[in-house]
């Protein structure tokens, strides 16, 4: 099947679309045009297919009206107004061409070009430059201005004049950012970049310094370059720049691309749509796609620039096997690797029973691939030992939201944030973890929405340019439930709940019982303050703001789920949304920010050991019948092992073989030593990945994987949006991941015959009610769709629970706070919590293999100045971080972002292995590990711990590859 490429409807309309529903009709060059009120004359012309020349306007930012190239004539108005800043009016008669406007435009262009180098043929933007286009469009034929004959300067682009004197106006190119350059000699000071950085990204890293002829774009304060400024390398300014001033280095190196394919970012759960722009099959750049409904044309540094890992020399392209993990790897053919694997797995089952093997599906891979892996396990292996990394991140979301609302998913789309009035962010760090969502949120906050942040750390969203949270509640790690219960206590005892909503949408008696529970004085903020460290007055004010401030929305992340009370916290959040009536419309809702690109999809596709696709329990006969009929095999009605249970069973000797697709459990899962012991106890570990990851140190088979650029499929983002992933080049390893899973299934006797992932989606649709109307043809025409999408909801479901909850009535759940067993004491007096940063992604397997490392070379331990001082620790020193599970060492950074008593680190680097420290405690309902709370001690040290050295030695041994035999 030929891959369909969507033609890009990408014309720049000049100014942003108006949201008004009032329509206005006017005449432009004799044509009647009807547009929403508030539309600019420029955009109205574009709608009619008439392009007005422009330089300082682009449709990602508000018009500014500085270049005067876009002038038009309007009947009955004096002069020649700029079409980008003039709104349409009923009956207006516009002329976009006249001798007068033509003369003005030529004059404007002449001035611009007189101060611009004329090296178009060798310029990186040749063919992709608006200045060039406009010079052509206005018919500029000569430039009358000339440099003074006797030296002196009237331009910005020559370093020296003919007399050899230095031009003080010349600023050399800034190459500091790894992905794009800033060449001031080509700048026309249109300020599109400055406005993009402010309006689209919300970082405010750029300013125009000086005025008139002296005005220049500048990153950061004096002396800063792009890298040292606040710039987060999102690329919005590069996108907005009409010239080669801000230019991707990849375009400078590879030339302008000539074709583009729409696809989806494979990093985080925002699920941004991109145009992959290519020459032949060489990827030149990734550009955010304007019509992507999750990102609306924006991106972050990861999706925009960090794709170089696909070509990294560490990438493994040939299958490899070995009998023992102490042996070096041996490269073999695909046939040999697959038959070796199939034989070993079947032998293990013969010897140790059907349930002695299992697999882990990937939240990085496509829905189709995930569906196949769980099918392989349930149907070919014949057991339910399937799990996914969502176990360690959002499994409590699944349990909590299913219990309270009836559906294991967030309730809104991202657009919903544009209508929110009060936002609670709890246990999430959106500017770093979900940057494009954060930009959209910040835009709304700058427009006046209020913000409450509940987080042990002062995250970047708490205070940044033009944004300050109304309330930051810096709670002690592990006390989420106590804080949320106190908020609910204030709302209920002060009578601020939405009684109407509760009476119609929930069970009133159930609520009455809940209200009695939550009104107890033990939940009052004054009573919980000692426990949580949160100021009672501040909490009361936050609760009142949320309950009375209009549309209230709650966004949360792993700081909620990765606790022993993760599921309870999710239910407490759901309670809060229900009692304030904040569900079922725009601007409200419960919004889990998913970590990996396809966590939602992996959960939907039946990755969990107890659930078939569509969240239906394996014990349900009717559901099993559906799948058994299509698969032609019996399905075990008992739940299988979850990841931590698999490792325990391996240590016990009853679990022997694991197929692990696209996950690195040794680095990402808690209590590394226990994971190591589990893996070491297995007899056949199959790692299917791009790189020899940490888990591969314990593997017997390595199956090289394909990147998201090399296959077709779909990802489902945090808003339940099913987005297409499109193949832009052939898999370097020879096969797409779904083909590899199919080869293994067939080697074990399954006889699968898929020839394209669309057929897998058809099977999903035919078995899973929420996906009933989803197919590739529909996705080609619609772009994307949010499930449920079936006969009831043919257009999908941007907002859920509009007229009623999926389960009928919303359920209030009693949320009693239970302190975790993980407690500080004299040996381990500090609490460690973990997180991540913008430029690195999760275990870093991809981002560490890109230039993103300039922003984050190593994991650092954040420690409060007070805690550092009593330990004699100075900034940048090596410290030993120890818990009852293990110890490691890393460098300290001293900051008051964390409270006294709390330390924080990221887990992007295998050298640090923060998970040596984390323990095997987990969420009561789902076994989601308690990453966010570990009692630790910190002390000065002089380098890597013994464990780190042993680990590295083992890893190095294990990664040896024998030269190919021939």
């Amino acid at each position, binding site marked *: 099947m030929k891959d369909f490429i969507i033609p890009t409807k990408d014309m720049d309309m000049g100014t942003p679309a108006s949201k008004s529903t009032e329509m206005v009709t006017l005449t432009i060059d004799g044509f009647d045009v009807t547009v929403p009120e508030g539309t600019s004359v420029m955009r109205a012309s574009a709608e009619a297919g008439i392009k007005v020349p422009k330089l300082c306007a682009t449709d990602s930012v508000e018009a500014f009206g500085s270049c005067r190239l876009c002038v038009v004539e309007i009947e009955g108005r004096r002069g020649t107004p700029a079409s980008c800043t003039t709104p349409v009016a009923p009956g207006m008669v516009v002329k976009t061409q006249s001798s007068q406007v033509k003369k003005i435009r030529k004059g404007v262009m002449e001035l611009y070009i007189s101060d611009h180098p004329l090296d178009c043929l060798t310029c990186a933007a040749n063919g992709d430059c608006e200045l060039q286009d406009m010079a052509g469009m206005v018919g500029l034929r000569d430039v009358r201005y000339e440099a003074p004959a006797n030296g002196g300067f009237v331009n910005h682009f020559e370093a020296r004049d003919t007399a050899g004197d230095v031009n003080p106006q010349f600023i050399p190119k800034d190459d500091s950012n790894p992905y794009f350059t800033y060449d001031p000699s080509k700048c026309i000071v249109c300020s599109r970049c400055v406005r993009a950085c402010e309006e689209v990204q919300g970082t405010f890293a750029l300013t125009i310094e000086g005025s008139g002829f002296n005005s220049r774009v500048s990153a950061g304060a004096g002396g800063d370059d792009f890298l040292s400024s606040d710039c987060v390398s999102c690329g919005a300014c590069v996108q907005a720049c009409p010239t080669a001033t801000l230019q991707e280095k990849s375009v400078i190196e590879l030339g302008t691309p000539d074709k583009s394919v729409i696809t989806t970012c494979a990093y985080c759960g925002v699920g941004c749509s991109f145009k992959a722009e290519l020459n032949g099959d060489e990827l030149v750049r990734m550009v955010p796609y304007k019509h992507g409904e999750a990102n609306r044309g924006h991106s972050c540094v990861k999706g925009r620039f960090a794709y170089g890992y696909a070509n990294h020399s560490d990438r493994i392209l040939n299958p490899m096997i070995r009998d023992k993990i102490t042996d070096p790897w041996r490269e073999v053919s695909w046939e040999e690797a697959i038959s070796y694997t199939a034989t070993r797995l079947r032998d293990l089952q013969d010897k140790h029973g059907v349930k002695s093997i299992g697999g882990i599906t990937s939240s990085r891979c496509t829905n189709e691939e995930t569906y196949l892996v769980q099918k392989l396990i349930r149907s070919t292996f014949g057991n339910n030992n399937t799990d996914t990394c969502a176990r360690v991140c959002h499994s409590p979301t699944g349990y909590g939201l299913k219990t309270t609302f009836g559906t294991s998913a967030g309730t809104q789309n991202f657009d919903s944030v544009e209508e929110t009035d009060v936002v609670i962010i709890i246990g999430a760090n959106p500017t770093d973890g979900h940057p494009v969502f954060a930009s959209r949120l910040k835009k709304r906050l700058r427009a006046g929405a209020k913000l409450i942040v509940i987080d042990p750390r002062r995250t970047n969203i708490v205070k940044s340019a033009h944004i300050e949270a109304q309330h930051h509640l810096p709670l002690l790690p592990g006390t989420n439930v106590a804080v949320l219960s106190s908020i609910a206590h204030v709302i209920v005892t002060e009578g601020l709940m939405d009684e109407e909503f509760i009476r119609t949408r929930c069970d009133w008696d159930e609520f009455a019982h809940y209200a009695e529970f939550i009104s107890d004085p033990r939940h009052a903020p004054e009573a919980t303050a000692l426990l949580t460290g949160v100021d009672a007055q501040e909490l009361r004010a936050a609760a009142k703001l949320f309950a009375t401030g209009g549309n209230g929305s709650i966004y949360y992340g792993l700081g909620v789920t990765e606790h022993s009370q993760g599921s309870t916290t999710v239910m407490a959040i759901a309670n809060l949304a229900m009692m304030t009536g904040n569900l079922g419309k725009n601007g409200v809702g419960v919004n889990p920010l998913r970590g990996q690109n396809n966590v939602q999809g992996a959960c939907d596709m039946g990755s969990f050991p*107890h659930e078939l696709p569509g969240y239906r329990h394996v014990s349900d006969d009717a559901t099993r019948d559906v799948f058994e009929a299509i698969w032609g095999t019996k399905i075990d009605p*008992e739940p*299988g092992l979850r990841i931590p249970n698999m490792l*325990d*069973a391996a240590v*016990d000797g009853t679990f022997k073989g694991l197929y692990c697709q696209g996950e690195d459990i040794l680095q990402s899962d808690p209590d590394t030593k226990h994971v190591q012991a589990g893996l070491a106890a297995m007899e056949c570990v199959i790692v299917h990945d791009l790189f020899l990851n940490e888990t591969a140190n314990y593997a017997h088979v390595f199956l090289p994987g394909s990147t998201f650029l090399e296959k077709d499929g779909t990802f489902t983002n945090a808003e339940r949006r099913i987005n297409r992933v499109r193949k832009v080049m052939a898999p370097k390893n020879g096969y797409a991941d779904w083909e590899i899973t199919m080869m293994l299934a067939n080697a074990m006797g399954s006889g699968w015959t898929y020839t394209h992932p669309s057929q897998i989606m058809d099977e999903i649709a035919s078995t899973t009610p929420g996906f009933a109307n989803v197919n590739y043809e529909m996705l080609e025409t619609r772009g994307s769709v949010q499930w449920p999408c079936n006969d009831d909801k043919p257009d999908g479901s941007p907002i859920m629970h509009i007229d009623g909850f999926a389960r009928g009535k919303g359920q209030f759940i*009693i949320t009693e706070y*239970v302190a975790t067993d993980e407690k500080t004491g004299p040996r381990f007096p500090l609490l460690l919590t973990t997180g991540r940063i913008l430029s690195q992604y999760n275990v870093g397997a991809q981002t560490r293999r890109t230039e993103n490392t300039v922003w984050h070379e190593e994991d650092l331990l954040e420690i409060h100045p007070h805690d550092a001082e009593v330990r004699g620790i100075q900034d940048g020193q090596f410290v030993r971080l120890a818990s009852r599970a293990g110890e490691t060492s890393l460098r300290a950074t001293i900051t008051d972002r964390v409270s006294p008593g709390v330390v924080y680190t990221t887990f992007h680097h295998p050298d640090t292995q923060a998970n040596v420290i984390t323990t095997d405690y987990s969420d*009561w309902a789902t076994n989601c590990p308690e990453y966010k709370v570990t009692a630790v001690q910190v002390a000065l040290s002089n380098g890597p711990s013994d464990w780190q050295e042993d680990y590295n030695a083992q890893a190095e041994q294990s990664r040896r590859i024998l030269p190919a035999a021939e």
Partner: protein
Amino acid sequence: MSHEKLVRMANQIATFFESQPDADKAGRVAEHLKEFWEPRMLEQLADHLSSGEDGLSPLATEGSKRVLGLTA
């Protein structure tokens, strides 16, 4: 799996259902165990009960017995 870990997990579940309004709390614990625990884990729980070791809370014990069919 170490019995200690198993006991901790069962107790965590019981602690949650202890706080819930249900009349049959042990039934809820049993239901949760049935829904999420793999048979091997339930077997280990049975071993633990029959070994006479303690550590399980009263509700966890009752729920475990219920799911294992050890009580009426």
